[in-house]
């Protein structure tokens, strides 16, 4: 390659780099100022901006697994619930293949937290027995028309034969004022259930599940309109079923309607607690029911929301809940940035100490890498919802060292070539050809580690792996389109090519005592004989394969295999 074409190609690559930076910055700038939702700084994760993070794990009966669709549906349901409470910018995502992670900025109120945490499973069960919630009140056995013992197999879900001795005993002993359910308890939908309503006013024996909450297509609160269309002041909850639910609800109401109190009631349970247990007033076959009672605007809306969003396909338990105050978050961010700044400064000082003038290239390369990483992260936080976490910041800081390493590998190779007596221009080319292989293969190992960790792990590990992988890629790119071309151009500058003592390429300093000039080879003089042999072997290695084979062939005739 002629001198001018080297310069030309170096300039070309630098131009590409400039174009890339301008393009990325342009996209972000455009996205910000046109109001498309981009920001000039990357968005921060919860541990840096403060907020509440809840990690939910599915509650499964033994051996069961959760499918991707179920998880996606659960995320959708939780999102609807959170949105309904008016919390903005909540992030609800699946993580790994079983967890759901909910992040809410600031400190959410207790009712929002409850709504998210309630590992809700909404079910319709017929009422078999019902009485007041406290045991003391039910000592009067007249209140409970209890059959002595089941006489036969139950024939339908409302059959009193479901009430076995055990269930009767549990029902009698139940005191709704105590914590009678285990947190995260899973009930068998095919068996009866002994439970209380959410207020503890009433306790029940309920039949097996007849309709799943997932079959509710809509629920809303509204005032009752009379048959003439006039609006009254009475609040009610309107319920719509999907086609399967319509069919099931028609058959349930058809069976319950002729029965007597309490067996003409059906209970809606959420997470095992009865949220409402209305009486059936008609056979409803069109899938559209109305629950009336002593509702006001607030209570009817709450019930409607529970009915609409309360039916997670699977139950969840809270695996961890973390609340980070905004002050702690910003303190962590500023400490992280401070640590990064100190780390960067130390690396710069060390590289000036080691590489003198070349440190300019190191600093420049690190600066370019930093700009690219910043732009890519900002872009990803806009387009892909990426959030920079504390672990991510740590990943970025650690990456400073690993990025600088690729320059060290390169500089050391160039120096090696100089020691062999090459001119700076030739050493830069030859050193690059050798260094780039090493940089690519070692970068691949780093990238492999990052990709594997990202794909197979969860939580903070992912955030860290992501930044590490990103910086490795950026590092490879910067080495190719910045560090190498810059060094090619600098090799033309007198300060470096003349081997100024402060250039980092000082021939004397590199031990090239017999350096004559550009392109001139040295002969080893003051090196011990055995070592000289080794050096000549080095030279031998740099012959072409054909040359060397010929030489070897004549020397070791008959012995090479």
């Amino acid at each position: 390659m002629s001198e001018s074409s080297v310069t030309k190609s170096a300039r070309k690559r630098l131009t590409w780099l400039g174009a890339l930076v301008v393009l990325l910055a342009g996209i972000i700038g455009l996205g910000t100022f046109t109001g498309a939702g981009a920001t000039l700084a990357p968005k921060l994760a919860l541990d840096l901006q403060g907020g509440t993070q809840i990690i939910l794990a599915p509650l499964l009966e033994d051996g069961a697994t959760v499918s991707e669709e179920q998880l996606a549906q659960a995320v959708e349901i939780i999102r609807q619930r959170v949105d309904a409470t008016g919390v903005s910018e909540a992030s609800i995502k699946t993580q790994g293949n079983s967890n759901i992670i909910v992040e809410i900025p600031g400190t959410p109120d207790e009712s929002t937290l409850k709504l998210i945490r309630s590992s809700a499973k909404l079910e319709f069960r017929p009422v078999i027995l019902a009485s007041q919630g406290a045991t003391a009140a039910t000592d009067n056995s007249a209140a409970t028309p209890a059959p002595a013992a089941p006489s036969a197999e139950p024939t339908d879900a409302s059959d009193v034969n479901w009430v076995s001795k055990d269930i009767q005993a549990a029902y009698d002993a139940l005191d709704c004022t105590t914590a009678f359910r285990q947190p995260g308890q899973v009930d068998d939908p095919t068996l009866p259930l002994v439970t209380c309503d959410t207020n503890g006013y009433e306790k029940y024996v309920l039949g097996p599940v007849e309709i799943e909450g997932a079959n509710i297509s809509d629920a809303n609160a509204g005032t009752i309109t009379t048959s003439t269309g006039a609006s009254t002041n009475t609040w009610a909850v309107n319920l719509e079923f999907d086609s399967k639910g319509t069919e099931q609800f028609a058959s349930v109401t058809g069976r319950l309607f002729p029965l007597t109190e309490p067996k003409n009631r059906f209970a809606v349970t959420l997470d095992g607690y009865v949220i409402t247990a209305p009486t059936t007033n008609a056979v409803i076959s069109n899938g559209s029911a109305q629950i009336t009672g002593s509702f006001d605007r607030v209570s009817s809306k709450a019930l409607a929301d529970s009915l609409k969003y309360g039916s997670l396909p699977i139950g969840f338990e809270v695996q961890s809940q973390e609340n980070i105050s905004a002050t702690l978050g910003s303190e962590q961010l500023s400490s992280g940035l401070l640590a990064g700044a100190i780390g960067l400064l130390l690396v710069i000082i060390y590289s000036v100490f080691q590489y003198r003038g070349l440190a300019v290239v190191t600093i420049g390369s690190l600066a370019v890498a930093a700009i690219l990483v910043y732009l890519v992260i900002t872009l990803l936080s806009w387009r892909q919802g990426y959030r920079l976490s504390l672990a991510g910041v740590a990943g970025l800081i650690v990456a400073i060292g690993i990025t600088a390493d690729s320059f060290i590998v390169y500089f050391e190779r160039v120096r090696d070539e100089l020691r062999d007596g090459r001119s700076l221009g030739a050493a830069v080319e030859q050193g690059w050809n050798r260094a780039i292989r090493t940089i690519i293969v070692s970068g691949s190992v780093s990238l492999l580690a990052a990709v594997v960790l990202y794909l197979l792990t969860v939580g903070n590990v992912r955030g860290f792996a992501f930044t590490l992988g990103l910086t490795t890629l950026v590092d490879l790119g910067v080495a190719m389109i910045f560090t190498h071309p810059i060094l090619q151009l600098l090799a033309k500058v007198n300060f470096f090519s003349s081997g100024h003592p402060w250039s980092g390429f000082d021939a004397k300093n590199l031990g090239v005592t017999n350096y004559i000039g550009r392109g001139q080879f040295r002969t080893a003089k003051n090196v011990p004989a055995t070592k000289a042999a080794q050096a000549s072997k080095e030279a031998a290695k740099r012959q072409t394969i054909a040359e060397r084979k010929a030489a070897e062939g004549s020397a070791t005739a008959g012995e090479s295999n």
Partner: protein
Amino acid sequence: MSKFSDFGNDLYTGKRSINFVGRRKVFYIIAVAMVALAVILPIARGGFNFGIEFRGGSEFRVTGVADSSQQIAVDAVHAVEPEANPLVTNVGTDGIRIQTEQLTDVKSEEVRVSLAKAYGVESGAVASSFIGANWGADVTGKALNGLLVFIALAAVLMALYFRTLKMSLAAIIALLHDLVITAGLYGALGFEVTPAAVIGFLTILGYSLYDTVVVFDKIRENTFEVEFSETSTFAEQVNYAINQTLVRSINTSVVAVLPVASILFIGATLLGAGTLRDIALALFIGIIVGTYSTIFIAAPLYSHLREGEAKYKKAAAKVVAAK
């Protein structure tokens, strides 16, 4: 500076050479002893000191306190839950971390308010978290999975690039050495094992192999067709490669350790226990051990594995005879 660069020049030309390959028995013994200590000491100490993420429980963090006395926290927790057994640590200059057994939502809110009152801060300055006992185990289980997959893939990648399984083998033995020693140091000194420490631990993987690959690439270059050489043996060329890349190894590890050390320093002094300190601590140990093992274990071990091959043995005999 000039001394260090002379050192680099001498190593490059071979004027000065440190015999790493020849003294490998000593290094093997050191490595085996270190690994044995890394296994025995943690057991003797009673196992790892697992963080709250592994034990499960409730954690509170109070920031911006004027009086960072720990007794205030203990009293505040006991006021709400007399049975509790709070573990209080100071975090930085004005922070307090309190860990307790798992509390109910209501109790935990009461403790939060009680702590805020006791330290005279707004209740917003008290962060509370609750961690289920299997959270940390879940993270770690997945991380270990990732570790195994990574080691297998990296071994294949290296075997393909270097065209020999023996380099993969040597590199992975050195990697396991690094992991065991880092883990052992954690266990022996009783450092808290948190998910953040596990992250740092996993990053050692990438770094340790990265460092080994750079040196191995030089070895690959130096030992290329060394079986035809009449001047040097396989082992000599491996040793020469280690020496030639020694300056690079030192510079690299210094440059990698500097930012990690600054995170460690800032993390430990300003923030106290937490993500930054935990990641940095594992990495700090891992980088130093990783650089050491590349030079003293991976490369000599590789030479050990290969110099016995017939073609190298024959060539080496000839070289020795020629001298």
